[in-house]
């Protein structure tokens, strides 16, 4: 079984008079989308640059796809792509040339470059822009080209620093769907952003940095959830509600009255449909039955609050 996509141990990075990262350690599961969040100056960009092997940390170890980034940075680069916060394109080149250069520069064999360019353009929905100069594109299109460049060599890990910054709402939605597609293809993503609502659409994990320290790294949404938290609401109170729910295999009641209940249910959509049918068959007039998510913003604020209280 393959190990984690990223392993970081005791990572410390210093600027003159400032420890930007302080013994940060964490692991990232393969195929996950990790939201890297934290206030300004928390060390998010520094962490991404250390993961990418662009900046050398003072201490610590970084492993990406099983390769030690500090010992073999060039080999590790074959396994990862980076979209920096201020990404650049060669404005005088066409999109086709930009993608071809990125493919060739990242070791794609000569005979496969044209196909790689075509595939990237279709994947990123910029096939109609292949012969346009990069300098003539809109910000959203430029960003797609930049992501296409970062993905040209088929990396296992993609690092993105503020990818949605400056994008209009339509482009953001489109970006979120792209990230979901990449995740479905098995790419591991780490996305740093201030816009938690945007991350909420696709993040499976949340890594919180604060003042150079990691204060949280946990799953916010599993890729294949084993437990669903459900909120059940009846049109009219029913005294047997708790008993009826409790009688369904795999359901654990978190709280329940005569009209509303919160339940953790083991399993997936089939089990969820089964519970609904079980309640209706028992004569309960169900008017609300849905999965409850703690959104990323709430989760982040709760983490920060708890960390503050613990100090």
């Amino acid at each position, binding site marked *: 079984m393959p190990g984690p996509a990223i392993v970081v141990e005791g990572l410390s990075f*210093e*600027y*003159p*008079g*400032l*420890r*930007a990262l*302080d013994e940060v350690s964490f692991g990232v599961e393969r195929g996950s989308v990790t939201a890297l969040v934290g*206030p*300004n*100056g*928390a*060390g998010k960009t520094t962490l991404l640059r250390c993961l*990418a*092997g*662009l900046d*050398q940390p*003072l*201490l610590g170890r970084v492993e990406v796809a099983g390769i030690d980034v500090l010992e073999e*940075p*060039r080999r590790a*680069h*074959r396994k*990862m*792509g*980076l979209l*920096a916060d*201020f*990404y*650049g*394109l*060669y*404005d*005088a*080149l066409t999109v086709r*040339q930009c993608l071809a*250069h*990125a493919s*060739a*520069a*990242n*070791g794609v064999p*000569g*005979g496969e*470059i044209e196909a790689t360019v075509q595939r990237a353009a279709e994947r990123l929905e910029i096939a109609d822009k292949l012969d346009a100069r990069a300098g003539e594109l809109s910000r959203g299109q430029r960003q797609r080209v930049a992501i296409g*460049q*970062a993905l040209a*060599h088929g990396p296992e890990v993609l690092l993105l620093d503020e990818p949605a910054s400056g994008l209009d709402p339509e482009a953001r939605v489109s970006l979120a769907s792209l990230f979901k597609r990449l995740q479905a293809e098995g790419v591991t993503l780490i996305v740093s952003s201030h816009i938690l609502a945007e991350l909420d659409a696709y993040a499976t994990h949340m890594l919180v940095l*604060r*003042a*150079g*320290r990691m204060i949280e790294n946990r799953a916010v949404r599993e890729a294949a959830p084993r437990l669903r938290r459900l909120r059940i609401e009846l049109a009219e109170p029913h005294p047997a509600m708790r008993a009826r729910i409790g009688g369904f295999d795999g359901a654990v009641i978190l709280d329940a009255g005569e009209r509303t209940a919160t339940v953790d249910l083991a399993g997936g959509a089939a089990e969820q449909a089964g519970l609904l049918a079980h309640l209706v068959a028992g004569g309960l007039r169900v008017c609300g039955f849905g999965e409850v998510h703690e959104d990323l913003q709430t989760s982040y604020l709760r983490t920060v609050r708890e960390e503050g209280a613990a100090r």
Partner: protein
Amino acid sequence: MSGLNPELRRNLWLELTPHRLLAMPLLLALLLALVYVVSTDKLDSLAIAAAVIGCGLLVVWGPRNTGDSVIEEVRGRTWDAQRMSAIGPWAMTWGKLLGAASFTWYGGLMALAVLLAVTPRGWVHSSIKVAALIAVAGVLAQGAACLAGLSAARKGLSQRASTGAWLVVVLLVLVGPSVGFLTTAQQPMAWWGERYDAMNFVLASVACFAGWAVFGVYRSLCGELQVRTTPWAFALFAFFLTAYIAGFWTVPGIDLALRGRTAFLVCGLLVCATLTYVELFAERTGVIVVRRVQVRLARGELRRALEELPCWTVGFALTGLFCALGTALLPAGAFGGVPTRSAALVPLPLFLLLGRDVCIFLFFSFARQPRRVEGATLIYLAVLYGIVPWLLKAADLNDFADLVLPPAFDAPGKAIAVAAVHFAIAAGFMGWRLRGTWRAAPPQQD
């Protein structure tokens, strides 16, 4: 072109557009036709014009392009992607040097072809040698400009200045007259006791230095592309430069063997000190560099510590080595008018003054937020080496002037004492600044 070096191909896309490919020969043809029409000695004028155009394209325009090749990437935010690419340092070196200057080589080689075709009659040297000299001078200038650009990019100066521009001015001043002189020079050149044809010697010298410049770009790109290196190449270059310059040194009245050794020691001291200054100003130096070396040494990782070591430290150590050897071996008369017994003492105050200057630079670079380190250091050095001694001497206060600028050649013994005090004060300030910044501040609290 799919099998071509990716960096070279990218540059060719940018530089050799169909319009430019067409415009360059047309423009050259027009210029040369104009010279041919207006001149009286048609072929000679055509040859001179072709040489000047070739020189202009390869030694002036080419370096501007190679100097800006990395700076433009940093400005355009594409450099990080290049640093993460699979392009190796050699491929990147050739891709940048040949690619960024490809348009100027396109025009330059056409101009040199005209020079070879017309074979001027009035020239002392063959047009083949002149063309070869212009070509290797182009490689040297382009390599040097690329090195300067890499250094500026590493120091974060890419937003402020184009290094190519000032370098071009320097090259114009230095290379221009040399090439003019060489087309007429007939006197052989003496080097390490042997006489060589001037043109052949200069051609070989420029080719050697061009090789070093390309190798320097390669080594610099190794650092950028995370290929670890130890600073042996810098030490090798210091010895090469020492041996090269020492070959011109002549000290009358001493037998040849001793002259060679003396020349090597004196040149070694001066060359290594100069290279220390150059690297000190060209490299990224600060408390973090010291911290990295310290961490590696503390963990017993000697090779990693060497890899982290800035080149100026190697230059400084070599200066110390030449100082020690000079103090032990330098004969009377090695420094011209210096008294016999004192000649061997001259290197020590020079080394101490270099140490003081390094400490001044480090004092500024060890600040928590270092700003204008180079400028501040240069001002202090101007004050210490020029303004204050000159003012004191003008006021007839020569003894006081000697306390500011130790008389290393006139009174080496006194100079050692004064320079040692200077060094101790500067080192004290540097240590104080380093201790203040050494312990990293606690992480920022938002």
